[in-house]
């Protein structure tokens, strides 16, 4: 069963960067009404780069595993590069093919993270 490969299940069972940041530079909540997935992402930024990303999520395995993988992948990334991340980058990152419905679960963390950063840049 491709979608529940061992590394996806590993990230689902033991999500990385699964916590809170004290005094985050930005914090954003994302919600997927279709499945009730909910994610809160917090970031610390220094010199235009992501210094720390932490998230807390409720949801399906796909949404949590993707958030975990993204949180590892995006550590240290410049905000400009983060803004450019797309659906294809996420699919490559998780390495599975997803139906349009499940794609929404997989993209929730990226969209939320990009919103957080956008807010930060607007505010700052």
């Amino acid at each position: 069963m491709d979608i529940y490969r061992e590394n996806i299940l590993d990230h689902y069972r033991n999500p990385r960067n699964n916590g809170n940041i004290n005094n985050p530079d930005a914090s954003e909540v994302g919600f997927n009404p279709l499945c009730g997935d909910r994610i809160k992402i917090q970031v610390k930024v220094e010199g235009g780069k992501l210094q720390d990303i932490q998230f807390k999520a409720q949801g399906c395995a796909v949404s949590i595993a993707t958030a975990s993988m993204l949180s590892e992948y995006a550590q240290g990334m410049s905000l400009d590069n983060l803004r450019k991340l797309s659906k294809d980058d996420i699919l490559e990152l998780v390495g599975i093919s997803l139906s349009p419905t499940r794609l929404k679960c997989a993209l929730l963390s990226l969209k939320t993270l990009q919103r957080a950063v956008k807010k930060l840049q607007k505010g700052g």
Partner: protein
Amino acid sequence: MADFPLLNTTIKDKRIVYLDSTATALKPQIVLDAMDRYYREYSANVFRGLYDISERATAEFEKAREKIAKFIGAAISREVIFARNASEALNLVASTWGKENIKKNDVVVTTIMEHHSNFVPWQQLTAEKGAILKVVGLDLDYKLDEAELLSAVKEAKLLALTHISNVLGTINPIRSLIKKIRKINSDIVIVVDGAQSVPHIPVNVRALDCDFFAFSGHKMLGPTGIGVLWGKLKYLKQMSPYMYGGEMIKQVYLTKSTFQEPPLKFEAGTPDIAGAIGLGAAVDYLNSIGMDNVRKYEEELTELALLKLSKLPNIKIYGPKKASSRCGVVAFNLFNKDKVLIHPHDVAQVLNEDNVCVRSGHHCAMPLHDNLNVVATTRASFYIYNTKRDVDALVLGLKKVIDIFS
């Protein structure tokens, strides 16, 4: 089984275990044939042409209306209005009778187990009018809290109530409830959502004594795009049209128009002729089995499913305990050994690997899921083409889910 072409197909060389009939039912060959015949042999418009194929289209269209009327125990076929689906039928009542009669501070009663289509129209109407929406809750066995209902309807102008819950499967005892309600409030207008009852249990709208009754064709083996609003003629005559256009007018002048009598008054534009004919064929098919037999078969299957599912570790099944109080709809959630919810989308996805088709989500009943305090459920539902083998396939698939996520 052989009557349903889709069940003869395979995906990934495996048969399809279709357990989502509450969303939409599969179509038997005779429904497809009836629609095909219309499109191939007499696809003319209705009520217009004086030529043979148009006369035939009109006759078949009206014959379908008569079959449906008889099927639900309507006194006359004029009380059967074709709509797109149950949602449109319910919106029709809210937009016509509702808009004309619900005033500021009036009370409208509905329940927590409604599908959004029998909840949101009343929520929006009461908000617009400054009226009050009362929502009746559940008892501990996931049935309607009858005492709360009977108290809520006392001063109410309208009650909007589902016959069968599309999540819990609860069969509301509509007939006895309405009898009690009419004694408490003789003026109340009662709208019943029959989308889940007409396909699965015998229904007689006169015996129920409701005022409006709505259902969809596609959940009862018919095509998508056709549904029915049944209403008592006295109300249908009072109500304004829902939409304006062709077919529904008598006379049009530059400054005014007059309208047809029901049902045409509510059927503006060319109707779904093939859909109505297809639904008529679905009624023939259900009649050939007999609705008592449909109910009996599904009750047995539901009982078996409840028994087998309840043996799985850490499963929570929502809905009345006894199969006799519920329809063939079983919503549930699985939890891992740490009591953490295995998300219904993951459950459905794993089941899909073996072509076991279930629904996961809130099933268009968000207030109910909030009330149950869950974000989503997995729902398996049964119809006449399902078998014990399908129940076994479901249970086997769920064991796989438990293996993967525990």
